């Protein structure tokens, strides 16, 4: 049932239902559960991470309540925290557990798994014109390792001594000694096991993504004709493959220190009235290992979000992305540099100050490609014909947050300035804007934009608008004020600021932040409702609702194995032929053969 498509109108009218002839019934278990189809796996990642996002969100509301009204009892705390919230007042150890789990879940389970797992899986085959990942079985395993990791982490929330509580960065000795904090008992063990499973999942997925992009593009899909999303997924996957194993090693050594009496990270510790036997280990070594993953991790989550922003902004502005080559080059620059900047998290750990100056240098260099990216996004909007769909608004939001959060990175990356702001709320504000919320927006923008590809239906725009505007304003209302807390010297991971009279006149900021967080959190229910409602009752999607040029919009709406009935589309042009002068339609899909004048032009260049 090969259909030749030559003009955009063909694409629009090409009946999605052409595919139905191919339908054959598949057993429930292989179709929905142990599926090897990249589209189903994408949905599995998405739904699991949405679940986690709400868990982590509720955690943040509970600890925010404590920060805004310290020592006051809250029904929700009492209900959800049980013995950790007697009379609704959060226990200090439970506070640290919540912060730790919030951070861990958000960074790994929501932003890493939810973003890459969903969109790399969905889009790599669809946008490259491939029938599936190179190794669908490995791809399935990737999800199930993630699921196992999720189960272990979820169980850890309910252990007697509480979940891990040493911060998402789990610095030993705190994370190694149950005597130091109860969460470092069984909770920490489960955290490490869960993380090991997660790393396996991430590697299985990452290898697949890279292999697919390199080996399996459709005819005519040269690397330089790949949409920016694919470039970003591939680079992020490479970063993951190179850096996650180091975290694995660190976790393994930590397990040895905890359980088998080795001393990689522990030395000269006197606790609970006893001198421990470990000598010669170095806690700073752990920090090096951790941040060797930890910093690239920031880009592992951010790059895909930026890729999604590129794609959506270009499509909805009806313009090519400005400076395609510069976008790819700056992405490579960011990715390369991201491996040699980890020390900016360690300026004041006692690391050699000379090393600190090297890391300052490399860190501030990253600002240059980042600036290029920001300017290119803005220029893409210039003289566009912008359709402000909910997905587009979230994509613009990503750029806005990327700019705001990126700029404060210039302060933090400067070692001399970091002396004062290190580990304060200034950091919390910075990374939430540039990494947390920007990336979360990436997931959300993707859901609105590719919902027709995920579920074959359309989401409701009006609810999307309400969701966007509340979320956008609340994101700034929550994280903007945190900068000033940090500049006043308020450390992060503090259970309350009441022990410091010097912070008394900042308490109203904490109240503003919490109120905004609650409103913003509630707004996510609008999204959840829209999501579930649209899966079942949303209007049926046409094949190419946003009039996009990339190959996923040439695939039928119905999900079929192999993505395209009949032959795979062949690619003739780059992905951003929007608003070409002289064309009737304002877009030319990638699989439309070159026009006569274009052929001539191409011949001239050779």
């Amino acid at each position: 049932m090969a259909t030749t498509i030559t003009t955009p109108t063909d694409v629009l009218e090409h009946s999605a239902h052409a595919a139905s002839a191919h339908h054959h019934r598949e057993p429930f278990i292989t179709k929905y559960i142990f599926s090897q189809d990249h589209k189903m796996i994408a949905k599995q990642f998405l739904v699991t991470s949405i679940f986690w996002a709400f868990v982590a969100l509720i955690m943040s509301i509970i600890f925010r309540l404590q920060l805004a009204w310290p020592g006051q009892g809250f029904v929700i705390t009492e209900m959800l925290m049980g013995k950790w919230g007697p009379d609704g007042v959060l226990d200090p150890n439970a506070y640290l557990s919540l912060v730790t789990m919030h951070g861990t879940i958000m960074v790994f389970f929501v932003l890493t798994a939810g973003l890459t797992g969903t969109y790399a899986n969905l889009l790599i085959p669809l946008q490259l014109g491939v029938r599936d990942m190179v190794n669908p079985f490995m791809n399935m395993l990737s999800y199930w390792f993630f699921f196992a990791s999720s189960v272990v982490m979820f169980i850890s929330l309910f252990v007697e001594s509480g979940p891990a509580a040493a911060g998402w960065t789990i610095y030993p000795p705190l994370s190694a000694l149950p005597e130091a904090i109860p969460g470092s008992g069984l909770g920490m063990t489960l955290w490490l096991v869960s993380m090991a499973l997660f790393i396996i999942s991430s590697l299985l997925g990452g290898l697949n993504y890279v292999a697919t992009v390199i080996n399996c593009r459709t005819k005519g899909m040269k690397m330089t004709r790949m949409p920016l999303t694919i470039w970003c997924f591939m680079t992020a996957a490479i970063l993951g493959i190179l850096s996650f194993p180091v975290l694995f090693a660190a976790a393994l050594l930590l397990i040895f220190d905890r359980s088998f009496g080795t001393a990689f990270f522990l030395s000269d510790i006197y606790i609970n009235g006893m001198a421990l036997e470990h000598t010669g280990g170095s806690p700073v070594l752990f920090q090096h290992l951790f941040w060797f993953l930890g910093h690239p991790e920031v880009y592992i989550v951010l790059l895909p979000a930026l890729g999604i922003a590129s794609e959506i902004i270009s499509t909805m502005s009806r313009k090519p992305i400005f400076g395609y080559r510069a976008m790819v080059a700056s992405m490579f620059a960011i990715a390369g540099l991201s491996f040699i900047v980890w020390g900016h998290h360690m300026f004041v750990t006692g690391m050699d100050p000379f090393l600190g100056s090297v890391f300052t240098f490399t860190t501030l260099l990253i600002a240059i490609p980042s600036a290029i990216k920001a300017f290119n996004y803005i220029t893409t909007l210039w003289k566009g014909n912008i359709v402000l769909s909910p997905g587009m608004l979230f994509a613009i939001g990503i750029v806005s947050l990327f700019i705001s959060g990126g700029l404060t990175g210039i302060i933090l990356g400067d070692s001399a300035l970091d002396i004062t702001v290190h580990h304060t709320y200034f950091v919390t504000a910075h990374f939430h804007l540039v990494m947390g919320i920007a990336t979360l927006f990436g997931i959300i923008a993707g859901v609105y934009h590719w919902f027709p590809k995920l579920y074959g239906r359309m989401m409701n725009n009006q609810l999307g608008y309400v969701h966007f505007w509340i979320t956008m304003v609340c994101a700034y209302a929550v994280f903007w004020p945190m900068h000033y807390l940090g500049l006043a010297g308020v450390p992060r991971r503090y259970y309350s600021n009441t022990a410091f009279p010097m912070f008394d006149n900042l308490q109203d900021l904490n109240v503003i932040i919490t109120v905004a967080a609650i409103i913003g959190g509630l707004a996510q229910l609008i999204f959840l409702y829209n999501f579930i409602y649209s899966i079942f009752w949303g209007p049926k999607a046409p094949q190419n609702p946003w009039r996009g040029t990339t190959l996923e919009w040439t695939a039928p709406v119905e999900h079929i194995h192999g993505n395209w009935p009949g032959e795979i589309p062949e690619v003739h042009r780059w992905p951003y032929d929007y608003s070409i002068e002289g064309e009737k339609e304002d877009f030319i899909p990638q699989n439309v053969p070159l026009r006569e004048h274009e052929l001539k032009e191409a011949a001239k260049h050779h």
Partner: protein
Amino acid sequence: MINNILFILITVLSLLTISRIIAVSNLIDTIRGRKPWEVTLKENGINAFLCLMMVFFGWFLYFYFYIKYVRGGLLLPEAASLHGKDIDVLSDVSFTIISVAYLLVQPFLWYFAFRYRMRPEGRAYHFAHNTRLEMVWTIVPAIIFCTLIFYGLKIWIKVFFSETEGDKLTVELYAQQFSWTARYAGSDKKLGEANYCMISDNNQLGIITPETIDEQIAKIGEKYKAVLHALDNFPDPAKFKELKRERELLTHQMKVLSDLKKQSAQKPFADGQDDIVILPAVGEFHIPVGRPVELKMRSQDVIHSAYLPHFRVHMYCSPGSITTFTFTPTITTQEMREKLAKEDFDFLLYCNNICGSAHFNMQMKVIVETEEQFNLWLSQQKTFSASRAPANSVPADTAKTSAQMATL
């Protein structure tokens, strides 16, 4: 109960209502021949207008907080140290640059989203790249950032590599869950060596002197005997495991102690005798103005961080190693109080690295005073050996709990 039922009922009803509204509006769209998911010009206009509002929201955020918090003096006051003043200038320069960038660049983004909103029959301008433009915004940021890098590095090097002139004062800051102890070198200007196996009720820092070695060996020996005795009495399995572990640890500790004992045959271990230890219960330590202070940081248990933001000083304290930070205070506590017109102002040292349940309350006052005042204060403190007369000892655990009790 009634409340809960009502709550659930209202939620369900409102969800149903919203679903109906969506369904009906989709139906109307379809009847009118419109696709329900297509963005209408009107919707687009409203959202574009809101994008325009974001320009003002961004400026509002900046200026509101700038006036109220930065100008209003609610942030950290001016640096009270020599290097801190340099850092503050660098900070002002950097913040000015990023503020300007924020105030200029954000509006472009949101304004373009508004200005170039979808028009009926409109068409975008195909503009895929422009080398000159791209060069401009590569080179301009590159110049700005490189300048900042070199300026920042200059200050950083000044902070950590400049030779301090004058007679510097060495103070040890010793961190433990959840308190600080300070130690000054006595008249010999040398801090005595310490070892974590030497820590006991009346030697919280584990300072090594010939007497403390003997005393500790006796103490641990007693403890060891007690454990053996308990083991002989057939404890229950859980207790048994615990005791065995304790025996193991005490054996290790004894080994270290006997090593020290051997060393003491060649080494006098005399530096610690005249050290001055300021216990957590005191709650403050003093330093003189205008003289370089070298902080030497150690930790007893987990990583803590010594954060003295008023002096722009910050350094982790990790068990097993000594970290240092040298700075010169320039303003006394009294002067700062007058400057800020706050009678109760105090410079503070507090913990800035997650270290356990009372991490949020691990602080100590820093009193900066004139050299004479400082010398007077120091001369009133007992030396380590003098303070070890039994009547004066404050057990470490008492100090810890009292610090914790203060706020809980």
